[in-house]
């Protein structure tokens, strides 16, 4: 055990407050400071026990001093007596995605349902209170295994900050803005977030100003080498949305890619994020056929 520090992200869980208390007590005995940064990613202490809500905040600590505490059981994560339990999970899904990214970046993944956990730097810690939980079979795989249990209609919003922008961007973290000038190129890709097997639809929101020309855009949605595609040419400035869906035969990291389909002299593009929805495999709405050209709908 060292005197360095530990950075912890706790996903929504009935056991979350029990772990928070237990860790705070242990840190206090060691003389560590305890900080809860909330959603702040700027003022992160470099030592002591730090509770965070984003994967970026965890990066202030070495991988060996990062931990995420997850609960992949939907019924235990949210009070099932609440009428909108599933929707509540979806609304909180951004924290699960943060945890997923943190796990990919090397944080230790710990199961909230257990009574005792071995934490990096702090060693063995016993949870303060709470009743026993069933241990979800896929707990060690991903914080997003929670979605394995969700029914069609469940959805999650994917924020623009989880995506990569190879050309860079200006604007805000909520609305990254890109100059489209240049070759055929990717504007946005990512976020490689694991989706369980099933049919998943993405509704992409974006704004475009073609600057009196046209903006040729190609959207791709899928995993590995399998993507469905939609190509569109936008001639008027506005906010648009495009929908694509595809069947995941097995759990796989999802990727959305948005391209400028051919070289352009002008135009500005802003990505507003997307909503990912589980769709019944036998849903009568046909999946988007590959390479289809459509007019984007103005919302």
């Amino acid at each position, binding site marked *: 055990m060292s005197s360095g520090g530990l950075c912890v992200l706790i996903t929504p869980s009935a056991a979350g407050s029990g772990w928070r208390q237990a860790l705070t007590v242990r840190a206090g005995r060691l003389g560590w400071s305890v900080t809860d940064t909330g959603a702040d990613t700027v003022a992160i202490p470099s030592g002591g026990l730090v509770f965070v809500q984003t994967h970026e905040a965890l990066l202030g600590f070495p991988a060996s001093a990062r931990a995420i505490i997850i609960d992949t059981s939907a019924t235990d994560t949210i009070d099932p007596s609440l009428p909108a339990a599933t929707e509540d999970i979806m609304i909180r899904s951004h924290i699960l995605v943060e945890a997923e990214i943190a796990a990919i970046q090397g944080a230790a993944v710990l199961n909230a349902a257990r009574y005792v956990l071995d934490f990096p730097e702090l060693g063995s810690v016993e949870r303060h209170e709470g009743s026993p939980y069933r241990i979800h079979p896929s707990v060690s795989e991903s914080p997003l295994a929670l979605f394995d249990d969700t029914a069609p209609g469940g959805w999650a919003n994917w924020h623009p900050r989880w995506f990569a922008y190879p050309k860079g961007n200006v604007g805000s973290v909520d609305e990254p803005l890109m100059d489209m*000038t*240049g*070759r055929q190129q990717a504007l946005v890709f990512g976020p490689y977030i694991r989706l369980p097997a099933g049919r998943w639809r993405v509704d992409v929101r974006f704004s475009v100003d073609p600057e009196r*020309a046209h903006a040729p855009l190609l959207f791709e949605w899928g995993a590995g080498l399998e993507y469905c595609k939609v190509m569109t040419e936008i001639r008027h400035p506005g906010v648009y949305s495009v929908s694509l869906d595809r069947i995941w035969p097995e759990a796989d990291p999802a990727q959305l890619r948005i391209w400028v389909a*051919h*070289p*352009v*002299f*002008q135009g500005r593009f802003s990505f507003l994020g997307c909503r990912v929805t589980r769709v019944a495999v036998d849903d009568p709405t046909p999946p988007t056929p590959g390479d289809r050209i459509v007019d984007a709908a103005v919302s």
Partner: protein
Amino acid sequence: MSPAANDIVDAPGLRVARLGKTFHGASRPVFQGIDFTLGRSGRLAILGRNGQGKSTLIKMLGGILPPTEGQIVWTMSSSWPIGFGGGFQGSLSGLDNIRFLARLYARNYRETLERVDDFAELGRSLRLPVKHYSSGMRARLAFGLSLAIEFDCYLIDELVAVGDARFQRKCQEELFQQRKDRAFMMASHDTQMVAHYCDRAIIIESGQCKIFEDVEEAVEIYSWLRAA
């Protein structure tokens, strides 16, 4: 930093700032807000579809058209636009025009004549008034004179329009090989030539002007604009 970029920082030969042009009576500018710097060995392509203002820009840089707004600051000598024969006195012969320009640029007339005659291959036609020349003959005389006088920077407006294939090869050899240390700006539709000889490019489109450090990228964009 690349050699061309160093050249721009260490020895800029031309600075263009907020340059714009609106013709008298026109409601919209041909272009505006052009900013760039050219080093003493910089090679800049000027790309744009017909009517977008390539030749206008070249003429402004050559001092033939005044800017409506902005500044052009030369700290190296520049040629008149090659391919442009408008600077000649039409009633004077080719020989007299050579004599006039040799005096104007303080060059030795005999040497200048020898070099022009050798390059332009106009022979006895040099004794005729320039107003009787074809456009090709005028371009050859203008090109020959600009090479004979020697400039730090050559302004080229559609070089390929001058003469037959053999003469075009001769022009390219004189410009791009014999004078490879000089700067030039070239307005052209010939994307192969631009990609081969230039290290940066400007595209003028719908009154906007953008500079590209990657000439291949500029050529790709320009090719799509032409095809649209």
